[in-house]
């Protein structure tokens, strides 16, 4: 991380958002292990810096699309954690009225199109949103978050090509956590970097340390500015690591122990704490206090979510058709 040029307020907001994501994910994990939370979940512990760095470079009316691993993106874009927790419990007060669950988290009012669990499925959606912005002459930007595995899908290549030929205001953000589920990325991608693939569409491709929220923020800011100027998309590859299983029941035995150990030492929150405290930008006490406040906030959210009302059977027939747009 370079010399600091940001206000303490900005840096602490970055820290707070990353911790909020981590604690939300950890709390959900324990609810699941206890058998209290139904379904399965795909979690993003270790990948917080990419979601936060990118979303902090966006305006409120910019939109994001996400994947089967959407909790971090949603929190970073400002979706309320109460509406997310309610959704995970299948409650009527959830952000999708309990009908979507973990893999369809979203809130259009906050600029998050509900997540698409089909790998690569959200990439054309973000491209379409960007096309709409361009046609309406709005200075808004769309972001598609995806994993490394998605870049081998046809939808990726079709959408990136379309974004490129029409200079659409869109960011293709690849969170490269080195594994597509259990498959090492090197086994299925020939190029050294995924960002190298940008060359065939003649758009900028950048690989950034995805565990450094400031580096991510700066790269995203540049790509967003370019998109807003009408100069087209950027392929942003953020190098990161998932320090949890692919899904809740995955012990991730394919991740070698020494690699996992190194990744834990390089995880973004611990690193950012060291940066903030080591450079005398703040004290460990201040950060601990933020951690404690968030823990309390999440505890309240869990209690409230468990008390919330379930949808009624007849609610299943609601929201089937759009009657007017």
């Amino acid at each position, binding site marked *: 991380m370079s010399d600091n040029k940001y206000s303490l307020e900005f840096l602490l907001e970055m820290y707070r958002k990353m911790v909020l994501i981590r604690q939300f994910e*950890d709390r959900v994990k324990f609810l699941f292990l206890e*058998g209290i939370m139904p379904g399965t979940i795909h979690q993003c512990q270790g990948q917080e810096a990419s979601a936060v760095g990118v979303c902090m470079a966006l305006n409120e009316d910019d939109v994001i699309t996400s994947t089967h691993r959407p909790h971090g993106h949603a929190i970073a874009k400002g979706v309320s954690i109460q509406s997310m927790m309610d959704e995970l419990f299948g409650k009527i007060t959830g952000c999708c009225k309990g009908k979507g669950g973990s893999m369809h988290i979203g809130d259009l009012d906050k600029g998050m199109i509900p997540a698409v669990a089909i790998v690569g499925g959200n990439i054309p959606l973000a491209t379409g949103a960007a096309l709409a912005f361009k046609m309406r002459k709005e200075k808004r930007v769309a972001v598609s978050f995806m994993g490394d595995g998605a870049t081998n899908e046809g939808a990726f290549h079709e959408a990136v090509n379309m974004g490129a030929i029409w200079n659409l205001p869109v960011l293709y953000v690849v969170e490269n956590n080195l594994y597509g589920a259990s498959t090492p990325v090197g086994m299925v991608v020939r190029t050294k970097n995924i960002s190298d693939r940008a060359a065939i569409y003649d758009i900028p491709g950048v690989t950034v340390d995805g565990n450094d929220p400031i580096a991510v923020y700066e790269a995203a800011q540049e790509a967003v500015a370019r998109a807003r100027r009408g100069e087209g998309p950027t392929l942003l590859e953020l190098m990161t690591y998932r320090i949890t299983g692919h899904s809740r029941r995955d012990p991730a035995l394919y991740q070698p122990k020494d690699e996992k150990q190194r990744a834990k030492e390089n995880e973004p929150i611990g690193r950012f704490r060291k940066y903030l405290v080591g450079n005398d930008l703040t004290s460990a006490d201040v950060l601990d206090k933020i951690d404690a406040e968030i823990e309390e906030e999440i505890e309240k959210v869990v209690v409230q979510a468990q008390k919330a009302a379930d949808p009624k059977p007849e609610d299943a027939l609601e929201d089937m058709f759009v009657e007017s747009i």
Partner: protein
Amino acid sequence: MAKEIKVPDLGVNVETVVILKWMKEVGDEVKMGDVLCEVETDKAATDLESVAKGVLLKKLFDEGAEVEKDTVIAYVGEAGEAVPE
């Protein structure tokens, strides 16, 4: 109150697990997410993480025991706290 640690749902068709190795001793401090023991399903060995913090108060099974899903295998709580017999 001491919290029950149960064998979680570890996947489709996993009905029982074998406790391979306890990683904590009674009296040890336990944080949320600490590995309490290693268990083996019919597919793989995996870590069983604590869903409570405090002290490991009691282990209900020895290493090598085969245990059904949802069975209480340990209690975690405050030091000196009573646990059900």
